[in-house]
């Protein structure tokens, strides 16, 4: 055994040496990229893998959404429409019967059928997959194949958001995936989607080719190339130099420059991500007093922040919901900018001379976040609240955030791909939720009831009440809904999605 191990390591060493000495893959990428006129997308981060069973970060999903299809599909405006499932019947509160599209094939010719759906769901739930999505689907009780193209999915309890999760349930080819193994599948995924993977040049680019046998009309653009550049300056420069068609996360201040260029446009769309400052009332701090929390909300000029730091394209939020979310109540109004009122409230709470407090944040995660946090602290200092910024590396920030070890204030953005109040309130404003804010029995009760109500009108009403209470209790400094922004070349016709995913099926070159 020992010798075997030694041999193995020797072999590895030899491998290393050959790799270093040959360094042949050096300019090989050039050939792959020389396909005629690809659509070039420059993304800020590279996917960690392309297996929808395990990889579910935004950078990964932006690619897999092009390679894979789900049972249902989410439209621009958030409606769920059939995709790989031609239709479905909700048999009960906890049971769905899907009728699958026939004649759909994976890129390698493997048939799409009920087995593939069952496999795709069960693999996520299989602990051996170590999938981080397991918890997202843990409401599913069982998946039954009715016939080759019919499948029944049963839930453990009524689950109002189920349809949303079916839009995110990308279907993988079981035969192929089992054959190459999960490790390889991440790198060489095969789906039924509009595009198929040509090559993945690690750290550099992923090239996709149109699936000409797509079950819908094939996409307009033949090749799409995703490149990965973390520096926003480089991305913008690449766009301005005409070397990219679409870039993600351009700095808002680059808007003018991008618009000035005849060949590029600055594109904005409403997003789903709300930005707020979480206020942890469970630890000992002046924030325990609701008047202080309200004062903080009054103290910040959100208009100015949006205008100056977000390219004027964000929308003020009254709580943590946006107008697109189920449960949003337009009657609940955002806190206006009123520093006098803020001071008054602080004085009432006994902090006439203000106080000092710390805010935790990670930088580079949300649009212009570092400047926004500084602006917030600047406003707070004007009403006497002295805020000390503790910027953390994102990993550490995340641990302390979910480990409930943050400072009393923490700067967060919360995306709501489900467009449902539950996806926000359940995780943020409920007792014992993921983020620590308040523990308010009245709010808890409303939220719990809503969770188990399938009747949409009743649910809506419950959330409406909760929204109002949350606004008053101010478990956060409510800020704004972050837009989705891109830099785009004028030759490209494509509309951004509010869920931030780069779905290129609709994209067209204007002169084509």
């Amino acid at each position: 055994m020992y010798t075997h191990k030694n041999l193995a390591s020797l072999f590895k060493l030899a491998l290393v040496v050959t790799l270093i000495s040959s360094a042949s893959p050096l300019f090989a990428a050039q050939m792959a990229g020389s396909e005629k006129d690809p659509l070039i997308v420059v993304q800020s981060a590279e996917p960690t893998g392309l297996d929808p069973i395990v990889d579910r970060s935004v950078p990964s999903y932006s690619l897999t959404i092009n390679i894979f299809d789900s049972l249902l599909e989410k439209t621009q405006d958030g409606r769920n429409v059939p995709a790989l499932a031609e239709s479905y019947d909700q048999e009960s509160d906890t049971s769905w019967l899907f009728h699958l599209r026939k004649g759909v094939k994976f890129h390698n010719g493997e048939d799409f059928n009920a087995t593939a759906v069952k496999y795709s769901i069960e693999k996520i739930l299989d602990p051996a997959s170590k999938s981080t999505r397991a918890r997202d689907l843990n409401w599913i009780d069982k998946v039954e194949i009715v016939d080759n193209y019919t499948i029944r999915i049963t839930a453990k309890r009524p689950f109002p958001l189920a349809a949303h999760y079916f839009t995110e349930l990308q279907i993988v080819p079981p035969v192929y995936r089992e054959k190459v193994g999960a490790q390889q599948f991440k790198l060489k995924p095969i789906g039924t989607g509009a595009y198929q993977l040509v090559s993945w040049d690690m750290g550099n680019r992923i090239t996709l080719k149109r699936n000409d046998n797509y079950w819908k009309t094939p996409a307009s653009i033949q090749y799409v190339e995703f490149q990965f550049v973390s520096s926003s300056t480089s991305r913008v420069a690449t766009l301005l130099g005409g070397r990219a068609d679409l870039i993600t996360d351009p700095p808002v201040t680059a808007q003018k420059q991008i618009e000035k260029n005849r060949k590029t446009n600055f594109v904005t769309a409403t997003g789903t991500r709300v930005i707020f400052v979480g206020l942890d009332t469970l630890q000992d701090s002046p924030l325990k007093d609701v008047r202080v929390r309200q004062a903080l909300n009054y103290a910040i000029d959100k208009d100015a922040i949006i205008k100056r730091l977000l390219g004027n394209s964000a929308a003020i939020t009254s709580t943590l919901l946006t107008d697109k979310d189920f449960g949003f109540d337009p009657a609940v109004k955002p806190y206006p900018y009123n520093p006098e009122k803020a001071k008054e409230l602080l004085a009432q709470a006994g902090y006439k001379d203000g106080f000092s407090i710390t805010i935790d944040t990670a930088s580079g995660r949300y649009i212009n976040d570092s400047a926004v946090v500084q602006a917030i602290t600047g406003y707070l200092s004007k009403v006497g609240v002295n805020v000390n910024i503790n910027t953390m590396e994102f990993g550490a920030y995340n641990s302390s955030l979910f480990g409930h070890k943050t400072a009393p204030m923490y700067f967060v953005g919360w995306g709501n791909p489900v467009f449902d109040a539950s996806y926000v309130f359940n995780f943020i404003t409920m007792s014992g939720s993921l983020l620590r804010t308040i523990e308010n029995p009245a709010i808890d009760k409303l939220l719990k009831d809503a969770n188990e109500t399938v009747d949409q009108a009743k649910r809506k009403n419950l959330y409406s009440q909760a929204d109002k209470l949350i606004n008053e209790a101010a478990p956060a400094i409510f800020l704004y809904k972050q837009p989705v922004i891109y830099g785009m070349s004028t030759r490209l016709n494509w509309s951004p999605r509010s869920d931030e995913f780069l779905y290129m099926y609709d994209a067209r070159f204007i002169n084509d």
Partner: protein
Amino acid sequence: MIKFILRRLIQSLVTIVIIVSVVFLVLNLSGDPIRMIASPTASEADLAQLRSAYGLDKPLAVRYVNYLSKVAHLEFGESLRTQQEALQMVLKRLPATLVLAFSALVLATIVGIPIGMLAALKKGTSIDSTAVLISMIGQAMPVFWIALLLIFLFGVLIPILPPSGYGTPAHLVLPTISLSLFLLAGIVRVTRSSTLEVLSQPFVNVLNSKGISEHLILIKHIFRNASIPVLTQLSLQMRFVIGGSVVVESVFGWPGIGQLLAQSAYGRDYPVVIASTFFIALFILVFSMVLDIFYGLIDPRVRVWK
């Protein structure tokens, strides 16, 4: 010579062990990597399960010993973020960094050595002071600043060069220049001072007294003698080159080991951080050993004696 190489090998081994230990220690001081990879909605039980799946639940000492023996077998494990073999990830990124580092090195050397020698030969003239001043400016500019200015100049103002990406020689130009400026400055200065040092040696006087032509003295004697400290400088500077490549690769989206390291360090992706650090250190050590052998080829005192 063989003894010498053997000795260097063992020294390098010790160095590598120290490095991987330092990295292990430092990484274990920091936050919980599982939080990074787990879904934000994961429960404590899920986390515990993941932790044990990645062997992060054992005591530090046990992990250290396991870790050392695994590193010794080049088993770095799977990346926590991508679930791929860390070794493979690093090896895939290695060529890009090598290309960048070597082109920066070559550029800095072929430009720096002649300038340095010229400055020394024209010591005290305006050529000399200009060369020295420029080299000092090169050392005074942070790499990222140079990179950003270059991007603005050649990517935006006069968009003749790609400001990001990898693949064609054109992509190599801006990163190479950004990375080589600091190195170039160092090489100019070392070449200058070592040339001056050689010029002050009596044997140069002897060569002159023999009536050997200046050309021959310069190429055959001064250059060869002066290149010895430059080699030493190169081996010392390699770590700055690799360090600089972390920044340069991030700015230019260069798919090298430096960018991978930065990303993995942020993501607390232990196996990848360890594997990349290991290979960076290995590369620097191999590089300095190759230079040492070069050194032996140039200098008979090293070659014959040891």
